[in-house]
């Protein structure tokens, strides 16, 4: 059995030498060599220290050591020899002015022989199975597959890990003619196995059903790697795990086919040293408590406190009272801030000598690990009876502040994610208190408390110094990773004399290109002299340009002026100015959990504001001209005015041709998925609410919700859509009595449907209904209503499911709501054939009720498995993955189901022209908005719901759209132009004077349709048609082509509606 020892770093500082700071490190020894690492105290991180000497105190042996400068401080790395020693061994370090001696491998590594140094007489590899050390392609390597075993592998030495902390695992591998596993087609697996204290590979219960006993790092299907390949992963250690080991396995054997090198494991957050000040704090009787769930990460020097820690006189601290405790660990930003304890009421007692003390308390529940944010109401904090905090805000104020949280952090050059979005999640309290009778009582109600520091007043140590030190360490521990913008394209643009003189250039690039702060015009033709467009009365016509700074100047803001025409005027108020706001985008974890990974890009079109002109920095403005209905046809001219700080002005000419016709409404059912944000979730779901019963205490929230939803629905309508797929599943709003299902009093479905009807929408696909049909591995949601409905597909279940639909339909008719489309399932192909078969079962079960009530069912289909469902659906709504091709569309229509489309992109082309060409009866896209914990800080959300999908943002002044939202609007408007031309063609039938114009218009539409392939992947080039042997014939990708098409449509409409006079010759 291999003995495993905890690896703990303790740095004990010594009195500073006059010129050479020193310290000691006590390491709990491991039996195998490793490379240890620790942050030097910030006080010792001066760059003047170039070298370090480390000596093993017991033997006097000098060890290889080095200092590594990092942005966040200085890391001390040293080689720790393998020794069979119980307990701790002391190392002494001395900083030096010059670099001296030998340096160890420059990476911390908890693994024995991880760097795989080939040394004569080196100890046998611990845990190695069927492997040897050898030189492979000039590298020291571990070679798998030297024996006869079927799956030769290597288990690393076991290393101690701390639950909740992130570890970086990296290795290089080389495959040479590696055979593939016959069933799985894989050559190499790499896992991180979790072990308990006894060294057993352990199973961790997750959400009752899932068992996790290892993290899969790599499954390679390569046979040959053509040299060494590097991989790195960041793994968060689950709760309950103390030890871990890496397991490399050649999946199908193979003699010497797999080689590994540079295998490393190191904590992402390093151990820390303590400087004089820190030691003095402890010496003076300072106490440091880190609150959180049992087993969650603990900040260095702090004592862990969980709700289970009741007060005991022996220990001298703990909870002496606690009602309804709740403890949460959000996984970010660092050990002190990520976890909290809240309670309806908590009293934490610390025994202290009588006297005066300074206290610092940290509160804040960052909720970064889940899609909803927890809200605390009626919170209070007291220390020995002294009130430190009583919540003054109303629930409505708290929830709305949460909804808009971060909106005020408009990105400007130099913006710092940590300062703008991490720090404000916390509230700090400092106070002084006198302790009598030997005890300190900290009491709180409905407050998420993260940390408590107590310092005696009599010492030399100032609380302020301690708090500043903790803040610096917390920032150092927070993992921030900015993904740089891609390099600019090559081009021939260079500034001309006028632009140099002005200090900025104005330019135009295709709308669909991503916008980064620091980019440049590419081609000379990108230069912008004026903005021109056309539109119809009642239409929203976008104008769009970018300013590129050539020097650092003051601020600039854009103002739109009225447009004048011969026949009338479009007032300035009809020109809505938006500025493309840069955001910290959620760039996806990409294997790096436990940190914040982001990229700065523009997304929402925010309300206008002055912005600074800086060299190389870009600002883009979007002006939506809302052409008033009844505006006479003609050319309207005016300007956009760029007003600089200091008075300089630049006028950008605008010309808009208003056409003499109005657009037909959208001819299909189209919209976005939508799930309301706060205060909806807190009020109706109530699952994120602490300290209040909002339905009793905050009834005013209902009015606020109505106001919010009215604004959101009105905003959606401006896009030209006529439907919304509503996503709330109505949990808690349904009642089951005597076999009958009904809506409870004051239910939200009625509230929302009334607003939906009021906003003028058409059919509503009720997406929130999908969980009521059973899915493999997920409890049947009808069981929420009654235990008798737990087993699906029983007579009782069939009856209840049909009853749910019938009840909603009867309610709809009674209230005269728009049609409800009964959305029975979503993406069942994710569960393979079993999932799709269940979907077919659910769809088929509504046969009788469909026929009797004349209702329509719908489902979103994302794979061929769901073909079995199609004959049982009224509306079949596939996405690319179904797939959508000529055969599958024919299959749907041959199956007597209507063909609709979902999630084929937010692009203008797929929203408009392509949907038209496909003759789809409906089109839905994920999403207008879905509930997230932080709308304005998507980096803090566990998924990328907001930046990757949402087309809108909430602001205190009302919803705003994203660039994607505007693309969608353009696509929908294109479709309305098509519908208008088709109506004009139909109206011209039989009119001999328009025969030629009609023939030309029909030809135009036929040509257009011919350019649009059924498989939209060809169209938006997610698939290379050349590679697939296809033909590049569409020429429609991109806003320029689509603008041309729209103008082509307009010319034909004008011809058919009264000759060509409306168009300039």
């Amino acid at each position, binding site marked *: 059995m291999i003995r495993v020892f905890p690896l703990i770093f303790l740095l004990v500082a010594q009195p500073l030498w006059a010129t050479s700071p020193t310290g000691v490190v006590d390491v709990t020894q491991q039996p195998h060599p490793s490379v240890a690492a620790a942050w030097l105290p910030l006080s010792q991180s001066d760059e003047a220290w170039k070298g370090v000497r480390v000596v093993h105190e017991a033997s006097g042996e000098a060890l290889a050591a080095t200092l590594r400068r990092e942005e966040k401080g200085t890391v001390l790395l040293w080689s720790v020899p393998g020794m069979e020693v119980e307990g701790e061994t002391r190392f002494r370090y001395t900083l030096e002015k010059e670099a001296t001696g030998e340096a160890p491998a420059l990476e911390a590594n908890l693994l024995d022989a991880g760097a795989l140094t080939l040394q004569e007489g080196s100890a046998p590899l611990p845990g190695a199975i069927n492997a040897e050390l050898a030189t492979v392609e000039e590298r020291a390597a571990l070679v798998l597959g030297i024996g006869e075993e079927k799956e030769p592998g290597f288990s690393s030495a076991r290393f101690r890990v701390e639950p909740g902390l992130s570890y970086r695992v990296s290795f290089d591998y080389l495959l040479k003619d590696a055979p593939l596993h016959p069933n*799985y087609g894989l050559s190499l697996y790499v896992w991180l196995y979790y072990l308990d204290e006894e060294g057993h590979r352990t199973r961790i219960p997750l959400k009752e059903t899932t068992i996790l006993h290892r993290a899969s790092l790599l499954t390679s299907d390569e046979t040959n790697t053509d040299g060494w390949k590097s991989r790195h992963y960041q793994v968060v250690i689950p709760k309950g795990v103390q030890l871990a080991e890496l397991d490399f396995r050649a999946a199908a054997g193979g003699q010497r086919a797999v080689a590994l090198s540079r295998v490393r494991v190191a904590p992402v957050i390093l151990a820390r040293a303590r400087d004089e000040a820190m030691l003095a704090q402890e010496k003076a009787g300072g106490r440091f408590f880190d609150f959180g769930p049992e087993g969650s990460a603990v900040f260095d020097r702090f004592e862990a406190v969980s709700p289970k820690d009741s007060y005991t006189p022996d220990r001298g601290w703990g909870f002496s009272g606690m009602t309804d405790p709740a403890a949460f660990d959000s996984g970010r930003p660092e050990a002190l801030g990520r976890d909290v304890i809240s309670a309806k009421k908590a009293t934490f007692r610390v025994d202290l000598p009588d006297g005066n003390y300074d206290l610092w308390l940290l509160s804040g529940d960052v909720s970064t690990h889940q899609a909803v944010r927890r809200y605390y109401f009626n919170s209070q904090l007291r220390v020995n009876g002294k009130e430190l905090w009583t919540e003054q805000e109303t629930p409505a104020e708290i929830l709305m502040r949460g909804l808009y949280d971060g909106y005020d952090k408009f990105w400007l050059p130099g913006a710092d994610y940590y300062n703008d979005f991490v720090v404000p999640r916390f509230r700090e309290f400092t106070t002084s208190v006198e302790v009598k009778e030997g005890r300190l009582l900290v009491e709180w109600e409905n407050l998420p408390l993260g940390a408590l520091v107590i310092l005696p007043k009599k010492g030399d140590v100032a609380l302020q110094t301690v708090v500043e030190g903790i803040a610096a360490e917390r920032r150092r521990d927070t993992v921030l990773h900015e993904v740089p913008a891609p390099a600019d394209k090559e081009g021939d643009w260079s500034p001309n004399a006028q632009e140099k003189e002005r200090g900025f250039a104005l330019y135009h690039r295709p709308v669909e290109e991503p916008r980064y702060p620091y980019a440049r015009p590419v081609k000379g033709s990108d230069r912008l002299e004026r903005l021109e467009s056309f539109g119809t009365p009642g239409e929203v016509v976008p104008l769009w340009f970018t300013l590129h700074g050539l020097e650092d100047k003051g601020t600039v803001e854009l103002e739109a002026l009225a447009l004048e025409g011969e026949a009338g005027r479009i007032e300035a108020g009809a020109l809505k100015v938006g500025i493309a706001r840069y955001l910290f985008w959620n760039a996806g974890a990409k294997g790096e959990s436990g940190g914040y990974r982001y990229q700065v890009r523009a997304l929402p079109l925010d309300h206008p504001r002055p912005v600074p002109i800086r060299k190389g920095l870009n600002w883009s403005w979007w002006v939506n001209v809302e052409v008033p209905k009844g505006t006479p046809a003609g050319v309207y001219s005016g300007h956009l005015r760029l007003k600089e700080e200091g008075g300089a002005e630049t006028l950008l000419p605008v010309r808009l041709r208003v056409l003499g016709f109005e657009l037909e409404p959208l001819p299909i059912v189209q919209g976005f998925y939508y799930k309301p944000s706060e205060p909806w979730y807190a009020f109706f779901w109530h699952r994120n609410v602490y300290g209040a019963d909002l339905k009793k205490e905050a009834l005013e929230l209902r009015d606020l919700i109505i106001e919010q939803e009215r604004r959101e629905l009105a905003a959606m309508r401006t896009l030209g859509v006529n439907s919304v797929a509503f996503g709330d599943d109505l949990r808690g709003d349904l009642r089951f009595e005597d076999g009958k299902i009904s809506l409870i009093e004051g239910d939200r479905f009625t509230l929302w449907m009334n607003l939906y009807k009021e906003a003028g929408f058409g059919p509503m696909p009720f997406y929130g209904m999908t969980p009521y049909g059973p899915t493999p591995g997920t409890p049947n949601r009808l069981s929420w209503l009654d235990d008798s409905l737990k087993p699906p597909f029983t007579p009782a279940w069939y009856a209840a499911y049909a009853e749910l639909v019938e009840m909603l339909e009867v309610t709809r008719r009674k209230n005269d709501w728009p049609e409800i489309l009964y959305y029975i399932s979503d993406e069942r192909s994710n569960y393979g054939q079993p999932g799709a078969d269940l979907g077919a079962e659910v769809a088929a079960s509504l046969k009788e009720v469909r026929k009797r009530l004349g209702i329509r069912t719908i489902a979103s289909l994302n794979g061929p498995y769901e073909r079995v469902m199609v004959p049982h659906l009224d509306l079949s709504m596939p996405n690319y993955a179904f797939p959508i091709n000529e055969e599958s569309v024919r299959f749907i229509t041959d199956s007597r189901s209507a063909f609709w489309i979902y999630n084929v992109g937010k692009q203008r082309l797929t929203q408009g022209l392509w949907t038209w060409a496909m003759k789809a009866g409906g089109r839905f896209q994920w999403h207008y908005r879905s509930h997230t914990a932080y709308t304005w800080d998507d980096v803090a959300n566990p998924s990328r719901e907001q930046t990757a999908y949402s087309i809108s943002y909430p602001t205190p002044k009302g919803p705003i759209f994203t660039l994607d939202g505007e693309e969608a609007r353009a696509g929908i408007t294109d479709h309305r132009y098509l519908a208008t031309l088709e109506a004009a063609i139909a109206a011209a039938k039989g009119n001999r004077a328009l025969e030629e114009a009609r023939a030309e218009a029909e030809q135009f539409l036929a040509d257009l349709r011919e350019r649009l392939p059924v498989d939209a992947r060809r169209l938006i080039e997610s698939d290379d048609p050349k590679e697939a042997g296809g033909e590049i014939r569409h020429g429609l990708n991109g*806003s320029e082509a689509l603008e041309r098409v729209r103008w082509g449509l307009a010319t034909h409409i004008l011809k058919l509606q009264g000759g060509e006079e409306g168009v300039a010759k």
Partner: protein
Amino acid sequence: MKPWLLLTVLAWSVHAGAETLPVVEVAQVEERWQVDGRAQEAFWKELPRYDQFYTLKRHPGDDAPLGKVTFQMVRAGETLLVRVESEQEEVLVVTKESGTSAVCSDDAVELFLHTEGGPLYQFVVNAHGATFFQEVGAKGKSDWSPLWESAVHRGGGRWSVEMAIALPNLEAKAGSPWRLNVARTWRERLIYQSWAPVRKGYGERERHGLLQWQGQPPQGGMVRAVLPPLRGLLLGEHRLALRWEGVPSGSYRLQVGEGSERAPHGAVLTPVDGAIETEWEVRLARAGGHTLAVELVDAESGRLVSGWVGSVRTPRLLSVAGLWPVVEVGELPLRPALSLALHPASAAQGEVTVTVRQLNSQRSWETRFPLSGKLDHQWEVPTDFLLTGGYEMEVSAKTAHWGEDHWRGTFHIVPSIFAASSTRSYP
């Protein structure tokens, strides 16, 4: 009576662990055969029919008869012939293109073959005759397929599939028993039937039945063909290389071809350390899909030792760019460009003809130019020809060696938004 008919014709069972697994006996025949789905060969009439199928799932409330499913199996030389017949009046035919797993979701039959520890081969044919093959667990599913063919016949209230599979092309683990399953899906009624008593799906190999071969079991998979993935091949001449591994000593010949055609290629080959390196020229003279085949046969007996069949798609020869769907008059003249998707080593000689016709009019304009070895060309359509209206442009490239290709596209000249002299900055 032929000797193989002396064999027991009824299926018998063996116990695998606690489970009883069905067994099928595979007799040998010498007759000629044709895969047409019609069972025209005499031996089909005398072969046993296996008809004990498990119904894995059917839709609740569907009490209609299931319809009988039977299969037969026989070995003809190195080919395994399989026939599956399903009683079913109306079939729902949905997938008409082969090569997609959607075939499995249709009214379809599936055959699984493998040796214990070897790769699992899945052959699927739907009621339309569309096929799907995959070697489960191996790479390169898209461009590798064993030599096999199939045909479907429908009529008389039933539909039948015949498959012919070249056994030497399947990898078999020496000494391991052969296993199989035959399954049938009736999509509209959600009926899934399997001959083997599987629980997790048709492909659950541990519960597949066993094959008993008359005579020696096939030595399939002794020779493996290794070819780099073929992707993005342009028209033109290509030289392909293929390595045969695990080849027993002896003398061999290569047969190459496209589709079902084969022609001898090169000299007699002998393996070195069990491997033979072969090269051959492929001339891809038309755009679209090509099924390339190469076979290794015993030089003396002509017996097929191994083979490779791969599908490649070549892009069409001609593509044209620079032609917006709509052009404002102020943007003229028009300057489109063409490029030829031809392998650079293959000379582009010939001529291009460009014809522009105004739609619904007799007006046209034409230009010609030689290819002269270049793969890219640009030309200009004179402005005075392009009045407002719709146009069709035809580009014909006739090459000396690579056939010809024609491109047709339409565009529309429309008035400018503001005036003929203005040009608009498109977003």
